[in-house]
């Protein structure tokens, strides 16, 4: 029993400590809710179903804008950078708008949310709970996903959130930075009956963000305001110009419910298409508006590769035909080389995914075990928490070189008698004295030696205890 206690007391908190101090990422469980409609047709955020007791406040939104090459999917993708200005949202005002995200991106790499609070009454509010965020992800699709992509494969990480302070009117409360792994968040849909979606790879993400329930109706969610216009950008990749055509669309419903923030992003292997608009509120689909973004996939067909550099030849120009044949053979080997390269990449990545756990796996495991044990054992688990607290504090221990004591004054018969005078001591000022530094270094040398020899002595005893057979 003693050993079991020691095990619980030492092993679990140490492991949790060792793993959690490296990464204080807030873990979020995400759920796939089939109730949310698949809205492949939209490419925007949609705010619907607002709940009064929730503060759903994607106030800013930003992405980095880069054209990058993803070796996993062997495709280029676009990271866009946009942000929205904010406005207050009021339930009673039906003429509100959400945030338009024009120039949306083709592969969703991540986003940053900042949350604000708006206090309707001019008073300071105090929160004593962290503003954690709940995020729901769901995948909308009409066809069958190719491969083994599952809902839980969506990669989601919230880098941080904080709260627990006093906030004034419209004070900043918390910020979330969410990252997605495009290799997980993209999929290939080859079975769709709709030709618009056939042979197209895209990602579909439905977000539902909700902060903790708040009981006061004075607090309104704040939404972002439309700031973008339709834009058409061109990007140059490998000496070729591609056009990114995007168009925003937003739908906002204040009628009831919680806020649903939905984003759907597409990556198309065809040129820009003009498609209709989808209205999830009325579940209607209309054509004639072009708000669908698309990007040339930046991949070439086999025929394009094979015919690269091939000249137009006269039928009697034999040398030209020979050159073309040589060029085609050369292109063929280039194509084969690319194929072999992609196959080797696939094999390496497959083996890696089989044996190497993801970055968060071990952290999640120990955090999950810790939370489960904490919930289950309650006060019996408290010694473990204390130990963890001790170790954490010890690890964060920093040198204190100043002492500021205001002294103690005893009030006696209308006279204040100073019992202990104030003490203000700053050790660092002494370190400016070179002669003192020499003495101080001697002291440190002695204490360091004391620690090291103590450690050696401990290890020697430890080793002799093991070798000596005590730990059979």
């Amino acid at each position, binding site marked *: 029993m003693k050993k*079991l206690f020691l095990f619980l007391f030492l092993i679990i908190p140490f492991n949790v400590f060792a793993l959690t101090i490296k990464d204080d990422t807030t873990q979020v469980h995400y759920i796939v809710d089939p109730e949310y409609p698949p809205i492949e047709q939209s490419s925007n955020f949609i705010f619907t179903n607002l709940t009064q007791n929730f503060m759903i406040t994607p106030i800013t939104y930003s992405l980095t804008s880069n054209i990058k090459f993803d070796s996993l999917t062997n495709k280029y993708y676009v990271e866009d950078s946009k942000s929205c200005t904010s406005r207050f949202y009021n339930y009673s005002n039906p003429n509100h708008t959400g945030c338009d995200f024009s120039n949306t991106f083709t592969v969703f790499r991540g986003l940053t949310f900042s949350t604000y609070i708006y206090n309707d009454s001019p008073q300071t509010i105090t929160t004593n709970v962290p503003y954690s965020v709940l995020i729901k992800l769901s995948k909308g699709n009409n066809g069958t996903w190719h491969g083994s992509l599952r809902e839980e494969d969506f990669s989601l990480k919230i880098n941080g959130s904080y709260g627990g302070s006093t906030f004034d009117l419209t004070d900043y409360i918390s910020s979330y930075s969410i990252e997605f792994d495009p290799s997980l968040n993209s999929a290939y849909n080859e079975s769709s009956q709709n030709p618009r979606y056939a042979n197209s790879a895209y990602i579909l993400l439905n977000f539902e963000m909700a902060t903790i329930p708040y009981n006061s109706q004075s607090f309104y969610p704040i939404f972002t305001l439309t700031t973008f216009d339709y834009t058409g950008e061109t990007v140059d990749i490998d000496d070729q110009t591609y056009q990114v055509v995007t168009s925003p669309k937003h739908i906002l419903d204040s009628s009831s419910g919680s806020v649903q923030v939905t984003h759907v992003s597409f990556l198309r292997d065809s040129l820009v298409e003009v498609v209709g608009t989808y209205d999830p509120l009325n579940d209607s689909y209309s054509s004639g508006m072009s708000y669908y973004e698309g990007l040339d996939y930046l991949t070439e067909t086999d025929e394009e590769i094979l015919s690269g550099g091939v000249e137009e030849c006269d039928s009697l120009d034999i040398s030209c035909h020979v050159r073309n044949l040589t060029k085609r053979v050369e292109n063929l080997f280039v194509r084969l080389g690319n194929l072999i390269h992609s196959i080797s990449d696939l094999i390496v990545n497959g083996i890696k995914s089989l044996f190497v756990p993801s970055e968060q*796996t071990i952290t999640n495991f120990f955090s999950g075990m810790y939370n489960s044990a904490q919930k289950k054992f309650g006060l019996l688990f408290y010694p473990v928490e204390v130990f963890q607290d001790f170790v954490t504090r*010890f690890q964060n221990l920093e040198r204190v070189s100043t002492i500021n004591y205001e002294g103690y004054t005893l009030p006696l018969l209308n006279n204040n008698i100073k019992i202990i005078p104030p003490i203000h001591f700053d*050790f660092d000022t002494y370190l400016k004295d070179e002669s003192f530094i020499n003495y101080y270094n001697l002291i440190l040398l002695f204490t360091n030696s004391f*620690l090291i020899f103590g450690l050696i002595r401990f290890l020697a005893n430890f080793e002799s205890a093991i070798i000596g057979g005590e*730990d059979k």
Partner: protein
Amino acid sequence: MIIESIFYIIENFFNLIFGWIPDLPSIPDSIRVVVTNFFDIIFQGMGLLGVFFNLTLFKLVFVIILTCIIARETYQIIMWVLKKIPILNIQ
């Protein structure tokens, strides 16, 4: 994927074993506050140790000693369990 599966099994095994036990109440906040305040006082004072000790070395020694103790206790726990299995015949 393999290691993740092992973790998944361990976690579910833990939940299966202890799932039938009702959740015990947590420690009262008053006690928690007292302990926290106590630690605050202690560790504010421990900061002064940095004047006389190299804190980096101090933490390193602490971690090494703690690791050794944990490793030893883990080994003993495992051996204690294994010795209870007659078929292994571990003395």
